[in-house]
C-alpha cells in the first residue's frame, strides 16, 4: 500500500467523530491555542498513567492542527496550557514497528498493534529548523476503549529524536528519482 494513503487511513488527524451522531455526549475542551472546543466524548483519550513527566495530565483530546500536515494537537483536558504536537509515526518512518511489551498491550486491552493508533511526540529545536519525533516512546492508543499509554519500544534502534524533515527529504528525493527514471524509460 502506498505511503501517504496508508497513513491517512491509519491516522485520525482529521478530527474523528465529526459525523458521529450516535454518541451525543459532548465535552468542552479549553485550549490555549483554540479557545473552547467541543469534542465528542468518545474522542477523549485517557492515559491512566499520564504522559511520562506529566503524571497529573490524564485526559486528552486529539485536535486537528493543519490540513496540509499530518500533525495533531494533543490537548490536555486538565491543563489548557499543556498540549503536545503529535504525528503518526508511519509518516516519519513508514516501516515503523515498535516492540511493545505484552504488559503494555494487556494494560491497553490490546492483543497486538493492529487495532492500535500510534502517535509520536514532536519536538522543535534549533530555531524551528530541527523537527524531531520521539520514536522510542510512542503513544499507543486503543481507540475502542479510549485509553492510551506512553510505552518504551524495547530492543530497537529508535531514538527520542528522529529527524522528521530528513526522512521527508529522503522520500521526496526517492519520489523524484523514480519519476525521472520513468520518464527516461
Amino acid at each position, binding site marked *: 500500500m502506498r*505511503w501517504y494513503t496508508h497513513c491517512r487511513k491509519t491516522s485520525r488527524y482529521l478530527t474523528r467523530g465529526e459525523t458521529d451522531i450516535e454518541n451525543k455526549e459532548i465535552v468542552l475542551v479549553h485550549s490555549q491555542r483554540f479557545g473552547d472546543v467541543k469534542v465528542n466524548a468518545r474522542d477523549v483519550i485517557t492515559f491512566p498513567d499520564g504522559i511520562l513527566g506529566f503524571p497529573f495530565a490524564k485526559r486528552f483530546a486529539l485536535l486537528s492542527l493543519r490540513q496540509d500536515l499530518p500533525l495533531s494537537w494533543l490537548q490536555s483536558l486538565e491543563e489548557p496550557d499543556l498540549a503536545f504536537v503529535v504525528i503518526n509515526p508511519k509518516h516519519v518512518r513508514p516501516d515503523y514497528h515498535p516492540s511493545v511489551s505484552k504488559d503494555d498491550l*494487556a494494560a491497553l486491552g490490546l492483543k497486538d498493534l493492529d487495532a492500535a493508533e500510534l502517535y509520536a511526540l514532536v519536538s522543535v529545536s534549533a530555531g*524551528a529548523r530541527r523537527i524531531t519525533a*520521539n520514536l522510542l516512546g510512542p503513544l499507543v492508543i486503543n481507540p475502542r476503549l479510549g485509553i492510551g499509554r506512553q510505552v518504551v519500544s524495547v530492543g530497537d534502534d529508535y531514538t527520542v529524536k528522529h529527524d522528521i524533515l530528513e526522512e521527508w527529504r529522503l522520500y521526496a528525493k*526517492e519520489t523524484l528519482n523514480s519519476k525521472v527514471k520513468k520518464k527516461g524509460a
Partner: protein
Amino acid sequence: MLVLTRRVNERIIIGEDIEIVVVDIRGEQVKIGIEAPKDTRVYRKEVFEEIQAENRRASEAKESIDKAAEQMARLFKEAKAGEGEENASDLPEKRETTIEPRNAVEPDGAGERESTKKHLEER
C-alpha cells in the same frame, strides 16, 4: 536505602506482588528478572529519564510549531507527490507498511510476566 546481599536465583519481594530475582552475575553485569503486576511499569532508569526529558521538550513544541510548519508543509507535499502516480512499485520496498509488532504476541495472558523479565535481561 535498604541494601541486601543476594546470590544467583535468590529473590527479593517488594510489597505483595513484586518479585526481583538475580538471574546471572558476570563480571560487572548483573541480570535481574522482575515479576510485577501489569500496571507496574518497569524501565531502565536512563531510558525513563530520556523519555521524560524529551516529553518536557515536546511540551514546548506548541510555541514554535507554527514557525516550522511552512517548511514542513512544503517538504511533506514533495514527499507525497508520488502518490498520484500509477505505478506504486516505483516506491522503494522499505516504504511498504503494515502494522505488526516486531515480536510475536500470544493472544492470551501467557508469558506476560516473562516479557518484563526478558527485556531487562536483554542488554
